[in-house]
């Protein structure tokens, strides 16, 4: 069965340093795959290449069979490949509602209308409210994004990504800097999403990863050292070495 999204020998060099070393990965239609690895393992670089933020040095990225390597970001998003960032990236001065609405409008179309008013795009407005309600942000709708608490801003960013009706969603350390309560809220949310779309989660919180992932890939120095179910990974010798170093 042809993979939903797969990469063939994807490489990326920064000068002499190889950040991504011939990674081949297959991602299914839905379900939650986590990518873990020590700091500097090349997790974020991998996501940056796949989502078009930085060009690949060599190798291919295939999405539903067609080659999307180095395509411009906005075309990838139109195909349903969305992401959030390690450092929260939202529209600070715009209201929470506008943050999600503009994402919805960009995805649904209507951006070229220069004479009609925003409220004339009825479906966009309605769908925006639905997303906000699903993520429990509706009572913050009028607040400018910059006034939100850190946790809420992370949730907003997920909302923005969801407004792009993604078919595959890359989440780059969504729970970084969150309180346990907020982490639980996000992980329930992610699990809910994973039912109908494919989620790729980059995360350091091992308990979270082990508890909700369907499959885990472990990166170390840019290449895959282990892949499989959470239980296999927990007991895998190579993974422990990568994290804890060799026992003398």
């Amino acid at each position, binding site marked *: 069965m042809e993979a939903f999204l797969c990469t063939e020998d994807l490489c990326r060099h920064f000068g002499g340093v190889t950040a991504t070393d011939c990674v081949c990965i297959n991602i299914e239609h839905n379900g939650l795959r986590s990518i873990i690895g020590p700091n500097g393992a090349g997790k974020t670089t991998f996501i940056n290449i796949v989502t078009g933020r930085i060009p690949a040095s060599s190798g291919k990225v295939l999405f539903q069979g067609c080659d999307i390597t180095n395509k411009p970001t*906005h075309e990838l*998003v139109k195909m349903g490949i969305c992401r959030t960032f390690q450092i929260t990236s939202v529209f600070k001065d715009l209201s929470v509602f506008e943050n999600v609405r503009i*994402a919805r409008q960009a995805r649904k179309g209507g951006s070229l209308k220069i*004479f009609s008013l925003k409220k004339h795009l*009825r479906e966009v407005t*309605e769908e925006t409210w639905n997303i906000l309600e699903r993520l429990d942000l509706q009572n913050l709708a009028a607040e400018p994004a910059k006034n939100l608490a850190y946790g809420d801003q992370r949730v907003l960013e997920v909302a923005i990504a969801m407004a792009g009706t993604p078919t595959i969603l890359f989440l780059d350390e969504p729970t970084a800097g969150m309180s346990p309560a907020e982490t639980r809220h996000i992980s329930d949310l992610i699990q809910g999403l994973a039912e109908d779309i494919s989620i790729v989660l980059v995360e350091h919180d091992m308990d979270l990863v082990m508890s909700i992932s369907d499959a885990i890939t472990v990166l170390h120095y840019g290449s895959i050292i282990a892949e499989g179910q959470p239980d296999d990974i927990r007991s895998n010798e190579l993974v422990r070495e990568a994290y804890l170093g060799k026992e003398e």
Partner: protein
Amino acid sequence: MDKHLTIPDNDKGITAYKIAAITVLIAGLALFPFVITNRFYISLINEMLIYGLLAMSLDVLLGYTGLLSFMHNAYLGISAYVVGLFLIHISPSSLWLALVAGVIFTSVVALPVGWVQVRTGGLAFALLTLAFGMMFHTIVWKWYGLTGGDDGLMGVPNPAITIFGWKIGDSGDPATMYLFTLVIVALCYLLTRRIIRSPFGAVLEAIRENEERAAFIGINVRMYKLFGWMLACMLAGVAGALFILYKGYIGPTTMSAFAGAGVLMMVLLGGLGTLWGPLVGAAIFIYIQDYISTMTEHWEIYLGMVVVLLVLFLPTGFVGLGSYFKRLGKE
């Protein structure tokens, strides 16, 4: 109304106060030439309106799309020269044809320039506008045969202003020209205000706020930056056409780098991202430049001081004053 169809706060929309304020303002400006028949003030307000339109067009670029242009007055200059040359050489009476020719030529020039400009952002974009602006300035300054070089364009006729055949007056007469300018500037303002509040305008604001996130929600950032650039240049083209009709003269100094940065100051004086703020900013700048300079030779010192103090203590400009005090009140 169903909650799901309302957009919270972001669009105050047209309220009674705002309509009243705008009508009072436009009525006041329209009655002005009949109340005060002294042609000096009519010309002064006329110049304020024209530079206000130019400052507003720069605000579309800077305040709404977040792109800083050093020499936006270059596109005013190009349009003014084209309209002037059209009136001198092609047909001295057809006003509307000249205006359209000016705006179209400016857009035709602005398109390829825009295509190169949008490949950059931030400081590179600003320096690129300086490079292109100085290029146009040097061409106009050196092409003595066509543009008259340092002397500027001489002998630009004043065609009659006719709307659908009905002759309103001669564009040489300040009162008629003033009303003509007022109508065109008001139309451009209302049109631009509508565009800014449209879905297209929302995309521009998203690009201003966070260009990378805008790309990551599916916006073709370069294409929309180019549209924003074209809108700003076309409005500057209209301002240029009005300038040559009002002043009957255009020279390289109007297109210089320092006049360009002057327009930047007008936008700041007025207030970024408020669209009508720059109109107020232009009025203040012209008032200082034309009126105070008759009082003292050293008006530049005062203008420099005003700008420095403004940037340090009141970055939101005079128009932002209101929200500034409101915030002070709230804290």
